């Protein structure tokens, strides 16, 4: 197997970009500073009682028991992560599919764009948690209500990104596609969509963070099955602030990891499309 040839800008980046380890080291240092400050405030200076603000050690205990503990009630974080991820990925997939279809329709048909487009921006400004009571009444105290909120939050950025991206495709490409014999469907699939991939990816990334936040909000109010939201609620109800903080950290880490993955894909695509000139 031969390695794929380097693109010119990949070569450029190797030479002039900031070394990756340096960024990693500074991030690690930042984490250590935060952990140290936290430990100093709670465990050393004891500025707050542990039932108000527990130290890193207590939170670490919750994380370790929750992830790889073997007691009868341990491992709850792990199963909560599993079911929350399953839920958000299902919702996200539906949102992307729905958003792409709606975005395509909006880009193709001006009346839909001017009416629905405006409403979507309005709905997007409503925090997801505000939809939860309605979702409960509409769908019941169950998984579907959570999915509803996730899909609703996730599909709007996708729809807006897809329709915006398609509209921003340079007219020359359309003309060229038609001249070369593409039909309406061929034009969409082989010219317009590939041309708008970078903007769509940005929309997908926004949709992810919206969906993840909506999920946790929904789970918090629609508790009843294993989920990260339920763990937050249980931690609150049993005065276990360490569990609350552990769950918050896990939520942040998972959200961040996915965002990093999507960001990497986005950066890659933008480079391949020649949109990013490395410094």
């Amino acid at each position, binding site marked *: 197997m031969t390695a794929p040839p380097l693109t010119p800008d990949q070569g450029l980046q190797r030479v002039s970009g900031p070394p990756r380890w340096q960024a990693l080291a500074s991030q690690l240092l930042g984490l250590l500073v935060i952990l140290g400050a936290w430990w100093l405030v709670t465990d050393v200076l004891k500025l707050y009682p*542990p039932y108000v603000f527990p130290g890193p050690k207590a939170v670490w205990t919750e994380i370790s028991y929750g992830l790889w503990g073997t007691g009868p*009630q341990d491992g709850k974080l792990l199963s909560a992560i599993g079911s929350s991820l399953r839920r958000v990925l299902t919702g996200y997939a539906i949102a992307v599919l729905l958003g792409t279809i709606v975005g395509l329709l909006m880009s193709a048909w001006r009346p839909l764009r001017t009416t629905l487009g405006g409403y979507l921006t309005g709905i997007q400004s409503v925090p997801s948690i505000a939809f939860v009571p309605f979702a409960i009444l509409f769908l019941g105290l169950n998984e579907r209500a959570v999915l509803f909120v996730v899909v609703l939050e996730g599909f709007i950025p996708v729809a807006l990104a897809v329709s915006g991206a398609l509209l921003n495709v340079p007219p020359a490409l359309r003309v060229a596609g038609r001249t070369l014999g593409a039909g309406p469907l061929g034009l969409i699939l082989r010219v317009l969509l590939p041309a708008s991939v970078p903007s769509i990816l940005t929309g997908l990334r926004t949709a992810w963070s919206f969906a993840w936040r909506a999920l946790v909000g929904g789970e918090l109010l629609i508790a*009843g*099955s294993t989920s990260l939201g339920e763990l937050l609620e*249980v931690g609150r*109800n*049993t*005065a*276990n602030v360490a569990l609350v903080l552990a769950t918050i950290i896990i939520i942040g880490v998972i959200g961040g990891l996915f965002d990093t993955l999507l960001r990497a894909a986005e950066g890659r695509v933008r480079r391949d499309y020649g949109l990013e000139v490395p410094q």
Partner: protein
Amino acid sequence: MTRKALLTLLTLTVTTTAAAQEAQTVRLGFFPNLTHAPALVGLERGTFQKALGKVKLDAKEFVSGTTLTEAFAAGQIDIAYVGPGPAINAAGRGMPVQFLAGASEAGAVLVVRKDSGIKSYKDLGGKIVAVPSLGNTQDISLRHILNENGLKPKADGGSVTITPVAPADVMAAFAAKRVDATLVPEPWGAALEAQGHKVIGSEKTVWRDGKYPTTVVIVNAKFAQANPQLVAAFLKAHTDAVAFINKSPVGAQTAVNSQLLKLTGAKIDPRVLQRAFSRTRFTTSLDLAALTEYAKLNVEAGYARSAPDLAPFIRK
């Protein structure tokens, strides 16, 4: 030498200010439930205020042990009527909690929706059961009932969905068929029963033949240390309220109903209230053995890793 003098001076100042800072208000937390009847009766008849004299009573109503415990942790509540579940959790997490007295025993029933097809505890498999809030006293009891009947909550790999629903909202949840059963404190059980729903777990079969605390009175240990007289006066008023309830139940029911009307804007049918009363016992004594067993059930339910020794938390 100078340092020592300074330290003595500092200690003196601290002690004098502490002595001067005798509380001007007693902040009381409670729920608008029948199991909190001593609080309702004490408020309605002015028993607490009379006992406290010039010190103002600031009574705050809560809907769940969670928010009450949060207020307690934040130092916004001095004395509270609360279920043993949240109280034990608070003690286990190191909050300055002292168990002052008992308030009510039993008074929680398991009601199933009339068209749910549930006849016994064993039929709860695959159903949705509501509790006032996750980790509260009824939730812990429910998990124990399931355990005794070979059932498991969904979160532990079983089939029973346990969902938190405020008792006042259970009627609506039953009507919309969103919930199949509920373990609730009175008077909600009797009110659901009056609508034709069935009690499959009476206050006696829920746990320990009905010999379990449902509401206890706790006090902030720091407050108790700084205001021993106020706490003693409050305890006396609480004892009087419980004695009144046991001596004249009818008068107590009237008092409870008019206090509930003020708090919730709704009056309860006197027959419902009477039935709810018959299922609840009012007492000031604290059953340490039952509380300790509760702490163990709390561990069994997965809400704590170890049961705290509660004896040091009981106010002598």
